[in-house]
C-alpha cells in the first residue's frame, strides 16, 4: 500500500485515502479535432515500466486532484505537484535523472 503525500494539504496518507486518476498531462481534444488526436486523448496511454506521471485525488482528505511522479516498478514516489501544473517541475525531473531513469 503506497504512502502518498498530498501537495495541497500536506498530509501523508495511506493509498486507500486517495483515488487514482490515470495518466497525467493529457491534452483534451474536443469537437473539431482529428480522429487521431481524439483517439490519442481518449484511448492511448503510455503505461511505462519506470517513471510515470499520474493523477491522484485526495478523495478522503482535502478532495484535491494533484499529480504524482511514481516509478511503476520500484514504486518510488519522486514527488507530487499541483493539478494545475502542465508539466513536471524541474526538481522532480532532476530526482528522476539522479536515479538514472531520465
Amino acid at each position, binding site marked *: 500500500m*503506497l*504512502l502518498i503525500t498530498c501537495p495541497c494539504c500536506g498530509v501523508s496518507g*495511506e493509498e486507500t485515502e486517495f483515488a487514482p486518476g490515470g495518466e497525467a498531462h493529457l491534452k483534451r481534444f474536443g*469537437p473539431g479535432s482529428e480522429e487521431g488526436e*481524439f483517439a490519442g486523448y*481518449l484511448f492511448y496511454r503510455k503505461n511505462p515500466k519506470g517513471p510515470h506521471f499520474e493523477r491522484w485525488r485526495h478523495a478522503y482528505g482535502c478532495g484535491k486532484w494533484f499529480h504524482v511522479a511514481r516509478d511503476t516498478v*520500484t*514504486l518510488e514516489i519522486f514527488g507530487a505537484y499541483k493539478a494545475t501544473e502542465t508539466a513536471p517541475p524541474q526538481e522532480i525531473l532532476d530526482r528522476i535523472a539522479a536515479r538514472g531513469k531520465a
Partner: protein
Amino acid sequence: MTAHRLPSGGLLIDRARPVEFRFNGKPVKGFAGDTLAAALLASGRTLMGRSFKYHRPRGVVAAGVEEPNALMCVGEGPRATPNQRATMVEIAPGMSARSQNHWPSLEWDVGAVNAAIASVAPVFSAGFYYKTFLFPRIAWKHLYEPVIRQSAGLGPAPEGVDPDEYEHLHAFADVLVIGAGMAGLAAARAAAEAGARVIVAEQGPRAGGRLLSESDIEIGGMPGADWAAGEAAALAAMPNVTLLTRCQGAGLYDHGYALLDEEPKEGPSRRLWRVRAKRIVIATGAIERPLAFANNDLPGVMLAGAVRDYLALWAVAPGREIVVFANNDDAYRTALAAHLAGLTVKAVIDCRAEAAGALPEAARAAGIAVRTGMIVAKAKGGKALKSVLVAKRAADGRVAGALEEIGCDVLAMSGGWSPAVHLFSHCGGKLRWDEAQAMFRPAPERGAPTGADGEVNTFVAGAANGLLSTAEGLADALAAGARAASDLGFSAVAAEAPSATEPGMTPLQPLWFTPSVGKYAHGTKHFLDFQNDVTAADVELAAREGYESIEHAKRYTTLGMATDQGKLSNINGLATLANALAAPIPEVGTTTFRPPWTPLSLGSIAGRDAGTLFKPVRRTPMHDWHEANGADWEPVGEWRRPFTYRRAGESREASVAREVRAVREAAGMLDASTLGKLLVTGPDAGRFLDLLYTNMMSTLKPGACRYGLMCNENGFLFDDGVVARLPNGDFLCHTTTGGAERVHGWMEEWLQTEWPELKVHVANLTEQFTQIAVAGPKAREILQPLTGMDLSASALPFMGIAEGEMAGIPVRLFRISFSGELSYEIAAPAHRGRALWDAIREAGAGQGIQPYGTEALHVLRAEKGFIMIGDETDGTVTPQDLGLSWAVSKKKADFIGKRAQERPFLSHPERERLVGLETLEPGKRLPDGAYAVADPAAKTPEVIGRVTSSYLSPTLGRAIALGLVKRGPERMGEVISFPLEKGEVMQARIVDPVFYDKEGARQNV
C-alpha cells in the same frame, strides 16, 4: 506424570498449573504453557490426523509454525476454528480439539482406501485436477466430484455467526523488527538504544527463538536462553519499544506497510496490527528441512530441531528410542539432548562419509553410535513408526549393501536449514543460491524492498539472512538494527557484539532424495509436501510431462500450495525438480512467497467491519416511518428505499399495483430524499454546466427547471436529472440516487483539472434537504391548503419553482414529474422532513393519498417511456439511442461527449435504439434482459435487441416493456421474437415507448 513427560525441565510449562482439555471427545491432561501438540505427545499420542489426499496416518513433524500435519479444529459451534496447527495452539482449561480428514474415526479411516487405489491406478497423481478436466462433465458429476468431496477438504467451516471480537490497530514505528529470536532481540536493542521507536513482533509465546532450545550456546558468558530473557526484559522496559508476543509478522507490503497478526492473551480474539514502519528488520530465523525417504510421513518421523524443542520447552519425549538421520552437524544436538534426557539414542545415521565436527565427536564421547556414509532407506510401521531400514550409501547416491533394521519410535531427521525469507520476498526482495550451505538467502544487491523515497527500507538479519552461526548472526543483527536507526538520523552507537560461543560446525552435504529398494524405489512414498500429499514421484512425473518451470510444476503437482505454503517442501521440491531436469538448482529458481506468512483468520481481516458496521446504511429523515409502515426495503447505493409498502395479507405485486393506481387516480407521495442535490454557484456556473450537460443550461431562467443529461468523454450517457435554476440564480443539479457522489466527483475533476479558470463552486447538499414527491390528479388540492403559495397552473407552471412555507416549514417546490401526473417535488431542510411528510400525509388522507415505493415509481415512469439510468443505460448507450436527441444541444460548441458522438459508429443506423414492447399475450411479462433475435429457429440466432425494463402495468392492464432494438424506431408495429429457456419463444410488438398519455395532458393541468 506420563511416560512421555520428563520428570524435570520444560522452559514454557508451569507444572503447578495442570490443564485439562478434550481431544476427539476424550479428556487429556497437560500443563499451562503446553501446545496441543506437546500435550498430546506427552499423553503418548503420536497419531494426530490423516493426510489430505491419501488419508495416511500422520503425526506431528514440527514444533512451530511450519507444522504441516497436525491440523485440528479447535473450539465448538460458532467458535470452531478449523485447520489450527496443534504446534501453535496453547491449551486452555475446557478447550476442545478435534482431528480432521478422517471418517469414521482417526484410528480407522475409510478414506485411506484412496491410498490403496492410488497404488493400483494413479487417481491422485500429479496433475490429477488438470487431467480430469479433459474428461466429460458427466464424469465429474458422478465420479470425480463425489470422490473428491468424500476424501478431500480440510477442516469443516464453523456454524453460526462468530461471537468473538476482532480488532484492527494502526501503529507507526521507526523500526519494525519481525522475530524476537537472537537476531531480532539484538537488532531491536541496537535500534532502540539509538532512540528509535521500535515494535518487535514474536510469533511464539516467548522471545528467544532457538536459543530457548539449544543448551550449548553461550552469549555474553551466560546460557543463550538467559541472555534472551535479559534482552527481552530490557526491551520491554524501554519506553520507546513495544514488544509483542503471540504475534506473527503476516505480510510486508509497499512503502513499509506491514500486517502483524496478534492473538492476545486478553482482549479481542485477534488483533491485526496495521503498521507503517520507516525501516524493517526481518529476523525470522530458519526452517529445518525434512529428508525424502520411503514412508517419511509415518507418525514418529520428526524434524530433529523439533524433537529438541519438545524436550527443552515442554519436557516432552516424543518417544523412548530415537534414531537421528541427518546430513549435517546440527542434528547431533538432538542426539545429545535426547541422550541427556535419558532416552535411548539407537544411532545417528549421517549420509556424509565423515563426521568429525565438535558435535559428532561429542556424540561419540557420549557413547552414541555414529554411522557415517549411511542413509535411512525406509521407515516401517502402521499408525506409528516401529523401525527404520538403514543402508550404506554408494558414491552415486544409491543404496549399497544389505539393509539393516533398527527399532525406534522416533526418527529425528534433518536436511539442513533454510532461511525464512518469506517476508523479504513478499515485497520484492530477491534471493541467491548459496551452494556451500545449500540454501536460498536474501540478495539485497539484486533487489530489496524500498520506501516511498526509493531508499531500501528492509534488512534481513541473522539466520533469515543465511548466517546460521551464533556469532555471525549476532553481529549481523546488531549491524542491521544500528543501520536501520542511523538511516533515520538516530546516532546509533556501534554496539560491540557480546561474546558468543557454540560448538563449531562442519559443512553439510546436500541430500535431496534417499533411494529405497523394493516397492517404493521410485519415490511414491517419499513425501515432499506432507499437507498436500505430494511425493518426489509426483514432481518427477511433472518434469517428465514438461512442467519444467517451478511455477508450473508447483501448480501441476500442488506442491507448496497447502495452508503451510510449502514451508517444509519448497526447497526439497525444487531440488527434486532440478535433479529430474538435470539442471542446477538456481536455474530452476524458486516460487514467489506471498502473504500471509501463516494463515490469517477471516475474522482478523474483517476486524470490526462486520455485521452492521460492514457498510454504513444511509437513512432518510422518514426512514423510521417507512419501517413502521410495512416498507419492503430495497438497497439503492448505501441508501435503503421502500420498494413498496405492503399491507397485511397483501402480495408484493398487489401492493405495487395499488400504489400505482393511487397515483394515477388520486395522489401518491414518495420519499425522494435520496436524489443527489448538487449546488453549483459562481459567475461561471452556467458556462460550466453547459460543458457538463448535453443540453444548454446557461439559458435557464431563474425559477425554472430543465431535464438534463450527462455523458462521459466516450459520448455515453451516465447520469440524468432535473437542473433547477433557483430564484437567486444558483443552479441546483439533481442526480440519480446512486450517482450523487460520482457526479459531484465528476464536477470537481473537471473544475480542478481541465477548467481551473472557471469561477465555480460545487457543494453536495444531498443530505441537507429532504425531498417529497406528491403526484396525482389530486396533488394540488391536497397541498394548496398547507401553503400560502399559489399552486395554480398559472402561478406555478410545469417546470416552475416556488419558494415559501408549507405547514410552517420552509420549502422549495419544483413542479416536475417523473410519473406523467400533476406533480410537485417539495424540498425542505432535512430535520423538518418527517414533519413535512406527516403534514402532507394527514392533509391528503381524505383524498386517498398513499405513500408509494420505488417499484411503483418505476412502473409509472415506464408507462410514460421515461428512461432510468442503469436500466436503459449500461455505459454503451447514447442519448440519441434513447430518443433523447432533443436534449442534446446542436448549438453548443463543446460539451463533454460531443466530440465522441461525432464518431461514425455512434450515429450508425444499425445501432440499438429505444422502443416500447407489447407482448402478444398481454398478461405475460417479458423477462428483464431477454434478447430479441431475428430468427429464433436459426442455429446461431442473430441478436437484434434486448429488454431493458419490463413491468405489468396496472394502468394499462397489460405487460409493457422498454427495450433497445436495432433500427427500432423504424420498425414500429413489427413483431419480434424473444427465445427464452427450454425452447419457449415470446413475441412482442414494437410500439412507441410512451404507453400512456402520449400528449402529456395529465401533467399540464
